[in-house]
């Protein structure tokens, strides 16, 4: 295990050092004193493990394919931007556009995530998966084309009234979604989502894939999530293969 002291280190130097060590065959790196440095592990491939202490800067793990990144802290905007494979575990919260256009790999966020999370997610051979322990802001899964988003809401109380907003996501939830699936704990009133998206209710016990993602999340965080087994989740999927085929078709 190699330790890099990152305090005050400009991001270019930091990332050059990471790439140099990985090229030299180092398979475990420990980045200490990180504060806002951008592009950590961006474009990195291979089986290397990175442990980050501090607040990781924008675009952590962007376009990476393979590494396992563990962040003991929060991540700023754009974590896992367009990533293809590997895993990002965040023990704190994530900023805006986490998992933006990711096409493979997994992101686990213990706390909350920001706005526009998981927009335009896709899937290649391996499914892209994004699990959020807390809640997300507006535009969750906008234009989603593949992969899975799970929102657990471990720290939120869900409202009892049927028409009250589900607090685990904001406005424009899944708008423009045409692939993939979103599991959100609790029920979602009709007004919170647009047409072209259909909802169904499930519980993890009866949904093996959802159960798998929750177990993996619990494992990475060292948490006991067994209480979620019988909790109601809303499952959002697009209506049909081409839900927007007639969106701009006014001839009828």
């Amino acid at each position, binding site marked *: 295990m190699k330790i890099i002291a990152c305090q005050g280190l400009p991001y270019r130097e930091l990332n050059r050092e990471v790439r140099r060590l990985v090229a030299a065959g180092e398979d475990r790196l420990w980045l200490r004193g990180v504060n806002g440095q951008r592009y950590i592990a961006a474009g990195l491939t291979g089986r290397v493990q990175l442990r980050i202490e501090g607040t990781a800067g924008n675009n952590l793990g962007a376009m990476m394919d393979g590494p396992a990144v563990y962040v003991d802290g929060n991540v*700023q905007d754009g974590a896992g931007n367009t990533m293809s494979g590997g895993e990002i575990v965040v023990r704190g919260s994530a*900023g805006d556009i986490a998992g933006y256009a990711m096409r493979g790999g997994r992101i686990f966020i213990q706390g909350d995530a920001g*706005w526009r999370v998981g927009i335009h997610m896709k899937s290649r051979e391996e499914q892209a998966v994004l699990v959020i322990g807390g809640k997300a802001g507006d535009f969750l899964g906008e234009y989603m084309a593949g992969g899975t988003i799970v929102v657990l809401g471990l720290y939120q109380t869900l409202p009892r009234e049927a028409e009250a907003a589900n607090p685990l996501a904001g406005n424009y939830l899944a708008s423009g979604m045409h692939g993939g699936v979103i599991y959100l704990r609790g029920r979602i009133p009709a007004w919170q989502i647009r047409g072209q998206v259909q909802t169904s209710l499930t519980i993890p016990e009866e949904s093996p894939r959802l159960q798998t993602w929750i177990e993996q999340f619990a494992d990475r965080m060292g948490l006991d999530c067994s209480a979620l087994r019988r909790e109601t989740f809303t499952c959002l999927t697009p209506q049909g293969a081409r839900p927007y085929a007639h969106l701009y078709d006014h001839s009828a």
Partner: protein
Amino acid sequence: CAVAGFLSKAGKRVSGRTIAEMMTVMHDRSNGLGAGYAVYGLYPEYRQAYAFHLILADGRTWAEVEKILRQNFKICEQQEIPVRRTGRYKKAPLLWCYFCEPLRLDREKDSDELLLATVMGINRLAPRASVMSCGQDLGVFKGVGYPEEIAEFYRLDQYRGYSWIGHGRFPTNTPGWWGGAHPFSIGEIAVVHNGELSSYGTNKSVLENYGYELSLRTDTEVMAYAIHYLRRQNLSWSMVAKVLAPPHWAEVERMTALERELYTVLRRTYGGLLMNGPFSIIVGFPGGLMALNDRLKLRSLVAGVSGADLYVASEEAAIRQVCPRPEEVWPLPAGEALICRAGEASACHVA
């Protein structure tokens, strides 16, 4: 761009080193074409005086500006703003400070109008002259450069204030020049802004009806004037925020009848001051700060608290640079203002 703000709710005056450090860690968000700072609680010994901070191209402009100033104000004291003219700043413009009193003191209501007429008169000479700030007990220091360069140039560590805002510019649509750097300040408010205001044209034509002239060739100018105008209309800070970033009509429809009426009337009255486009702003005012995102949250803004200190910045890293273990750090939601005042024992509230 990068924005940052600091407020000591206890009213403790701190040096400019803190805000400069916050800005420096966000270096890569700027491109060296503009930076600046505003500080409140700067001139406690001249608290009653209007402190005009001016950017002047040459001696001739200086004389012209002084003439404009003397039409409405008595100059009590004046000085060159002390700077370090080294490196790229050997040819920096003349930076001058006047402490003034309004000539017609009997009409209290008129001081705002005197100030407005004077500032517009001076800014009409732009780019030869522009007003950085003109308020009481506050000052703006800005220019072309990176935030750390501007902090060094103006010797920011020599000043103290209970509240600071800072900006690092990355101009995309308008020129990077001394008067175009942030903060933009008029009267008692100062604003730093990250983003772009696509409603500039509409906002400008509305503001021109109220005596504002847009001379500084940068979209943020409308934000400063809109806030100044709305405050002169006696709107609370919460209401100012709801004019700049109003709720969407779909949200208004789900509100209670009373709220629906309020937001409909606000929109009907001040719709021309709605700010469209991506923005995050931090506004300084005497005794407090307001931070606000556009209603779709197209720019980032993070807040943190530690004891009586409030921090706001484009990036969490800026907060942790000066306060490694804040009690709480949170992102500001879309269109919901964070309004915080010094001397308030309670925690900052979200409007």
